């Protein structure tokens, strides 16, 4: 049994047949081929699956694809616009905010959301914002610096 859903992903509309139990993360990865969104746990803890749903970060392993029907999803693949990197992406490169890169897409999407809502966050606010997402490589230090770098970039723009 499948259900037809229409989801706008990174501004582009996709219509597809899915099993009702299909997780959004699997829909994005396996059906749309958007493998920048990762998967890392069974319990909604790690946050490597983070995408935005109507602009708000969600863990896509904890959302059914059918729940995204008629909604809009943002993934890492949509951060770069017209060949121009998002300042958050640049920040991660500038400040070595990633090592293995597995948590990075989710971290960047949360950072983007944070800066959209709080253009000049304190270090504590940045740490709070990403506290639902794990990183095993960076000890978070350079992720925080990357977000700060992006914030500075945007404030001075």
């Amino acid at each position, binding site marked *: 049994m499948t259900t037809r859903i229409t989801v706008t992903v990174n501004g582009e509309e996709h219509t597809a047949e899915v099993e009702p139990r299909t997780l959004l993360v699997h829909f994005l990865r396996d059906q749309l081929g958007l493998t*920048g969104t990762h998967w890392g746990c069974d*319990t909604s803890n790690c946050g490597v699956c983070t995408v935005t749903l109507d602009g708000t970060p969600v863990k896509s392993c904890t959302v059914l694809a059918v729940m995204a029907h008629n909604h809009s999803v943002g993934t890492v693949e949509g951060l770069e616009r017209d060949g121009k990197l998002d300042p958050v992406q640049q920040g991660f490169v500038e400040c070595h905010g990633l090592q293995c890169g597995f948590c990075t897409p989710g971290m960047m999407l949360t950072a983007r959301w944070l800066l959209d809502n709080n253009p000049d966050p304190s*270090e504590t606010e940045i740490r709070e914002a990403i506290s639902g997402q794990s990183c095993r490589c960076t000890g978070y*230090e350079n992720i925080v610096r990357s977000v700060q770098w992006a914030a500075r970039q945007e404030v001075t723009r």
Partner: protein
Amino acid sequence: MTTVDKPSMGFGRMHRKEDARFIRGRGTYVDDVRLPGMLHGAVLRSPFAHARIVSIDTRAAEAHPKVKAVITGKTLEGLKLAWMPTLSYDTQAVLATDKVRFQGQEVAFVVAEDKYSARDALELIDVEYEPLPAVVDARRALDPDAPVIRDDKENQNGNHIFDWTAGDKAATDAAFARAEVVVKQDVLYPRVHPAPLETCGALADFDKVTGKLTMWCNTQAPHAHRTVYALVAGLPEHKIRVISPDIGGGFGNKVPIYPGYVCAIVGSIVTGKPVKWMEDRSENLMSTGFARDYHMSGEVAATRDGKITAVRVKVIADHGAFNGTAQPTKYPAGFFHVFTGSYDLEAAHCEVTGVYTNKAPGGVAYACSFRITEAAYLIERLVDVLAFDLGMDPAQLRMKNLLRAEQFPYSSPTGWEYDSGDYPRALQLALDMVGYDEIRREQAAVRERWAAGDRSGTLPGVGISFFTEAVGAGPRKHMDILGLGMADGAELRVHPTGKAVLRISVQSQGQGHETTYAQIVAHELGIPPDDIEVVHGDTDQTPFGLGTYGSRSTPVSGAATAVVARKVRERARLVASAMLEVSADDLEWDGAGRWVVRGSTEQGRTIQEIALAAHSSLELPDGVEGHLDATTVYNPPNLTFPFGAYVCVVDVDPGTGQVKVRRFVAVDDCGVRINPTIVEGQVHGGLADGIGMALMQLIAFDEDGNCLGASFMDYLLPTSVECPSWELGETVTPSPHHPIGAKGVGESATVGSPAAVVNAVVDALKPYGVRHADMPLTPAQVWRVIQGSPLRTDLAIT
């Protein structure tokens, strides 16, 4: 602040080349690889820690419309694949035939059209078990009445695996007999798991027509895997290609060969289709390479004024149900015998006994540098216990006993030759950075208030850890894994236009090899890093080598890269001599990419000009074949010995047992730093690991052998709010035997940091008379320690 300079011609800060794909979501991790017709595998696992398998009924699963194959131990027995060798010359069941020996052990493998159906079909397999008593407590594994776990092995009457000793027992006992002071402490380093965010997985594609197996797998050691597959599956090695794509963190977890990989291969052979198997998180935590589980009993002999003379250690090492640790063959306890640490001792001795228990196999994983994590933790805890008993300041006690710079190269009482170091300088820097005296003053004030009866607020604690690492395994004469010597190849080819391709045997899991190895070549040849492509992680495209773990990439493969670049440079010299029509002896390297005529530096040729000429019709001297390339195999003469001094400051709330890490200062000396930004990033990550292990990460078991750390709800990883902003310092003592003086750093912080955190918490609890407490120092454990009834953390019992 991290500052990133412009890309340099060699060493220094530069942006990572690999970032371009990762920040766009364009990395290729194994689960991102999709092949036409690909099927999906799933593993059925044992719910019991120890049970006899009475029967397995797979009929209902086979009848599932989307299922293509169901494989059991019986199927594998027919193929002689039910058991496979481990990296420690033991055997491990691929799929259980007779018994299950740990909770989560592999029992059956389903191949289906999609991953959801594969999981559905697992539910349809009916296994009848007859539960057996489980061996959970490693300290009881050798009891005469303990159930025998490995009754599959001939002549295995109990749960004993090995006894191993190092050092001079007689000299050590004599030093103890003479000692003015002896302190003793049992120290548990409980079982933890590296838990990289990407779980383990593979995609096996066996082509019946060509007989070629292509194996995408997130392994840290693709070449070693290829050889083992050849040995296990009887496939010819030249028909096996292992591709290790981008890896989402490894930390040692991705060194072994797991049953799921073998099942994926069999699944592909049976179905004629590519088969992907990705474990889920519970499977990862329950069944793949764990770390530590060392039950240590340590003693220190010292003079009354704090000069340490000897150390004596007994260890029970819990290796789980199959001895699957990955370490050099000669060293069943890894490099644990570096436990004398950074101190100048007369004598030392250790006895390690390995035992089987009904737990997942493994033992060497999680950035431990082959058990140095355990060793460093033990000695640093013991030194603090000695300080406690003598009423001495732990910083002063360390200063008094640290090896002095003039003692290097230093031969340790357990047989190591430390290559270089200046320990007091590193410790002093760390103490200065943290403002040690000031913090002690603050602490004294709080303790005074506390003693006067005002017990509000938190207790500050300061913990120090000084560690010596031994990395870069290893000299191949002494170090091999499954008979494969631990030397690594490198191959460098400079194209006619002066762009180069470097092929290496090691495999990045986030370390940034594509950047740092290009920097090494740039440093040696003057070719810009952006003009150098680094190829790794594909056995068809790279020279043989043992892979990335034990912080061995820079010490071994980094050295191979420098050596191969120097070979190319020498070849270039001969070509340049033909170009300039001068003798090669009259040329000198200008250090920036040109061979120049000695004494007239404007006369010279750049490496790019030389590359073109090497491929041209230029007449070359006799014996020079043309083109500009070279290969090498690097066999390290010794390990390298990075070291560091860490200071942690915590605030402990005695009312709740909550520990807050206020500050963490880490001074690392890893020799020459190729890319300081990457070095610092690796240290940051390891420090977070240290906080995780010291305060929250734990794989415990209940009395029936049920794993109590089987998800991220129970196995707690440190997040951004538990971690402080790390404060890093550095000293640089080059390795005298490494071609570029580098030592390796990947695991230093994981090795050094847990002791600093634990020492800080124990120090904070001094007003309660606390001398030691076992990790992890969760609020419950701290609270129980204050009450005088600490938990036995590994068993989650009181």
